[in-house]
């Protein structure tokens, strides 16, 4: 039988290894980019400290904030995926499932057509969508049925997408811009976006860590969890708010990037089990690695063009995921 004892030893080892991987990828994200700059040049540039030189400008002003955003985005996506999967007790749940991404896209399109700052539109669009779903599907004090929430979220997501399409037809100049945006990209994202999402992101992380014990309990089903003392209403509010906040922040940072929210927690769950106290940080680290890696590829595949990152996460994510599913089935 394959499943090992989940000794603390392997957890801390995993955290350490993943952290090192994240650091390594972060470093690579700084030294690799569309423009090939040799390590020697980089070293010289840092030694000479000429901050107006192209090398330092590119590394410190373009690549640095971008890499931080990629790292952050990966963690946000993975964490919100973990919480959504835990709350809906569905290993296929993805931040997109509850309509947050669709709402964020709609917000982005509206702001874009009004020539307002798109990321803010995305952020609030995402939050509006989440609130809508919460109100419509679970407004009454006694209703906590998560399958209703999921269905409503999916339905509303489709509605938002339809409204978005209508807007794009009417304002056809927006189409290509938005098409690229929905594929996800960290192109043209710098310090200003980072400062915008930093506070909501950190807040969402804090809140998501508060959900871990509750999510464990929810695995027994809502009825059993309630009898063990879980306050279902409060849990719903905490889980959905924190995960939606994280999801909206990540869309604000990098557009809609798919699969990370699905793959990261699912992979870590197969490898390390479902205790959410462990699952959450593991997923976050893994998510960061995936996004950092994808962003490096996005810039290195056909420089100086940039491939939208959503395409890369799909190409990496899907086969990886299928491989994991097969592996899981062999053990079971």
């Amino acid at each position, binding site marked *: *039988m394959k*499943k090992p*004892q*989940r000794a603390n030893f392997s957890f801390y080892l995993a955290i350490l290894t993943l952290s090192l991987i994240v650091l390594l990828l972060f470093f690579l994200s700084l030294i690799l980019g569309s423009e090939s700059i040799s390590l020697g040049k980089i070293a010289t540039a840092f030694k000479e400290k000429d901050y107006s030189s192209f090398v330092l400008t590119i590394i410190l002003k373009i690549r640095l904030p971008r890499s931080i955003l990629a790292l952050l985005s990966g963690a946000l996506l993975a964490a919100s995926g973990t919480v959504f999967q835990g709350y809906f*007790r*569905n290993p296929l749940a993805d931040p997109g499932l509850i309509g947050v991404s669709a709402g964020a896209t709609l917000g982005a399109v509206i702001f874009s057509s009004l020539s307002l700052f798109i990321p803010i539109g995305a952020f609030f669009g995402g939050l509006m969508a989440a609130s809508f779903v919460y109100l419509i599907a679970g407004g*009454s004090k*006694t*209703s*906590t*049925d998560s399958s209703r929430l999921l269905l409503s979220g999916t339905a509303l997501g489709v509605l938002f997408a339809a409204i978005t399409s209508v807007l794009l037809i009417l304002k056809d100049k927006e189409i290509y811009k938005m098409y690229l945006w929905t594929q996800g990209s960290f192109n043209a994202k710098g310090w200003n976006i980072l400062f915008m999402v930093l506070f909501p992101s950190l807040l969402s992380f804090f809140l998501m860590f*508060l959900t871990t*014990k*509750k999510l*464990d*309990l*929810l*695995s*027994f*089903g809502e*009825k*059993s969890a*309630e*009898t*063990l*003392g*879980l*306050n*279902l209403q409060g849990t719903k509010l905490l889980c959905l708010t924190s995960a939606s906040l994280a999801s909206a922040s990540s869309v604000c940072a990098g557009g809609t990037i798919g699969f990370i929210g699905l793959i990261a927690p699912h992979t870590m*769950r197969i490898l390390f*089990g*479902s*205790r959410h*106290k462990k699952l959450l940080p593991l997923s976050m680290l893994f998510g960061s690695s995936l996004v950092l890696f994808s962003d490096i590829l996005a810039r290195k595949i056909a420089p100086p063009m940039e491939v939208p990152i959503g395409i890369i996460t799909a190409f990496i994510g899907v086969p990886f995921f299928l491989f994991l599913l097969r592996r899981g089935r062999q053990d079971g």
Partner: protein
Amino acid sequence: MAKIEVKNLTAQYEKGKNVLENLSFTVEDGEILCLIGPNGGGKSTLLTLLAGIGMGKIKKTKNSEILINQKKIESYAANKKAREISYLGQTEKLAWHFSVFETVLMGRYAYSSAYLPYSKEDKQIALSVLEDLGIFHLKDRLTNEISGGELQKVRIARSLCQNTDIMLLDEPFSHLDIQHQSKLLSLIKTIAEEKKKTIVISLHDLNLCPLLSKTILLVNKTEAFFGSLEEIFTESYLNKVYKTDFGLFRHPELDIPQVFVKN
């Protein structure tokens, strides 16, 4: 005063169709009440209501009252309620699988801070409960790696960790082999006696009733009969409610009534 008091309980899932009607009974401290009746007759609904959960789906009428320790059940906050009442449903679909120890430990949730890890004391309690139930050797196994009978014990262990005065059990013996049934039965009897718990247990197998308790509640939707074993466990009541032809005999060794189907 009674531990559990039910007064004029009328409940329905949808308007017009009463699942329970004007039900009134009490359970004293330390008593075991057996809940019997045909399938779909409202046993599970009653237990759910007694546990104070599923409030969204089941609607009670205004003059229905359920009192636990003389307090209305609605007035209990989630975690306070979990320290008074434990409930074991018929089935549980586990979304993920933790180890037996972790699962049982979660029974301590109501005593533990919602955000801090479980305390050493919590862990001690969980371990000792595992020992009491004879499943200590399974503590590191995952819940999808053990048998149905063992899993049922794990769930009971989890409920025991809640250290409640009241235990509500919904058909805990169904899906179990006969040898496990009898083991679990004596386990529950022991727990009830040693720890003086108030238990309401619904049973599918009528003949287990007399082994467990002296008080019966026979219910089938709008019909309900409450009383002692001798009063209710009779051919007339059982045949009326179950609409079958039961015969009753006295068990030679144990001196308790037992039923058999005549046709």
